């Protein structure tokens, strides 16, 4: 059974979001056809809250909630899945210059996976850093579809993925309730826990999926046949 997860979302725990987790789940629950995701992964900026417990909300809305983190490195922003207390002690998540190669390697050694996100974004994306610095080793996957990307950013991500043969994920990068689930990742496997997610990100089959509504073409002021 396939699982569809929005792998990149920020709740009001992040300083630049005003979206309550409950509102995210309610939004998804009320719009299953438009936002067909089974769950969301909360990737709060520069922090890890081991004690946050969303089980009651999961039960109320029938939407899975997993926890990860978005940290900032010398190669841009990186999503860390499978965060452990040991990991949070090893790396100061508030540091905006975490050495990316150390993060990738040590997170993997501690049982998690580090996935660079919005790689096509200026300053904080892998694509631009690869123009100036050595390519990171042992990266398995990067984010292909990011719901917050501007024109050209996801295209640069696609170029990077093809060049380095990375696996591709998707996430909304939502900071607002109405944007949750618009980009996501479809896994072939059944995912119920963060351990399942880490395992699948490392070795499973998955693809980035786009649920953003297609823009309708702007109609001509004068019908084409009349002009």
């Amino acid at each position, binding site marked *: 059974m396939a699982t569809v997860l929005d792998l990149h979302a920020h709740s009001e725990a992040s300083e630049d979001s005003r979206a309550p987790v409950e509102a995210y789940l309610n939004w998804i629950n009320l719009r299953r056809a438009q936002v067909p995701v089974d769950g969301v992964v909360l990737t709060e900026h520069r922090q890890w809250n081991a004690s946050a417990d969303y089980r009651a909300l999961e039960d109320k809305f029938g939407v899975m909630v997993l926890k990860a983190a978005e940290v*900032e490195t010398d190669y841009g922003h990186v999503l860390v899945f499978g965060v452990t207390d040991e990991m949070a002690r090893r790396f100061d998540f508030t540091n*905006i210059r975490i050495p990316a190669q150390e993060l990738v390697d040590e997170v993997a050694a501690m049982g998690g996976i580090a996935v660079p996100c919005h790689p096509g974004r200026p300053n904080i994306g892998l694509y631009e850093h690869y123009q100036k610095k050595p390519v990171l080793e042992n990266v398995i996957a990067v984010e292909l579809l990011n719901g917050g990307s501007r024109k050209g950013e996801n295209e640069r991500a696609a170029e990077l993925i093809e060049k380095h043969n990375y696996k591709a994920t998707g996430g909304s990068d939502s900071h607002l309730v109405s944007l949750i689930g618009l980009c996501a990742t479809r896994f072939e496997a059944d995912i119920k826990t963060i351990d399942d997610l880490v395992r699948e990100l490392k070795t499973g089959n998955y693809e980035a999926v786009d649920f953003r509504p297609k823009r309708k073409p702007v109609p001509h002021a004068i019908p084409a046949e009349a002009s």
Partner: protein
Amino acid sequence: MVDFDPAIINKTFETTEPVPVSRDRIAKFCEAIGETNPLFTDDEGAKKGPYGGVIAPPSFATTFRNGRHFFEHVPRFGRRGFDAGKDVEFVAPIRPGDEITLSSAVKEIYDKTGRSGTMVFVVIRSTLRNQQGEIVAHIDHRFMNRP
């Protein structure tokens, strides 16, 4: 990591003189924002409400100004920046006859990276208290600096 003296965090640097809240001032505020809820506008109707009388609309809390020297105490990192917004937490109602005092302190300083580069954020928390010393609201002013 942004470099600053951690001793400045939570240290109150300014407290304003009390500002009286008149019934007329609340009425004028309601008129200005188009507020028609009887809780805020109708003396007789509000008596039957949960507060036993007229109270100020929640956003009234944002009308109280910091002191003249407020910005002299806001730490700066670099020469450029802008007001990055405010968060207001409403704690207790403000009533006619209250006298409101603001105390301001640096709540938080942090840095982050974005499309445009590195940014340092300074968050100043202004706490509003009434004449009984009861907290009625917190206002977090967020300032972005470009180092």
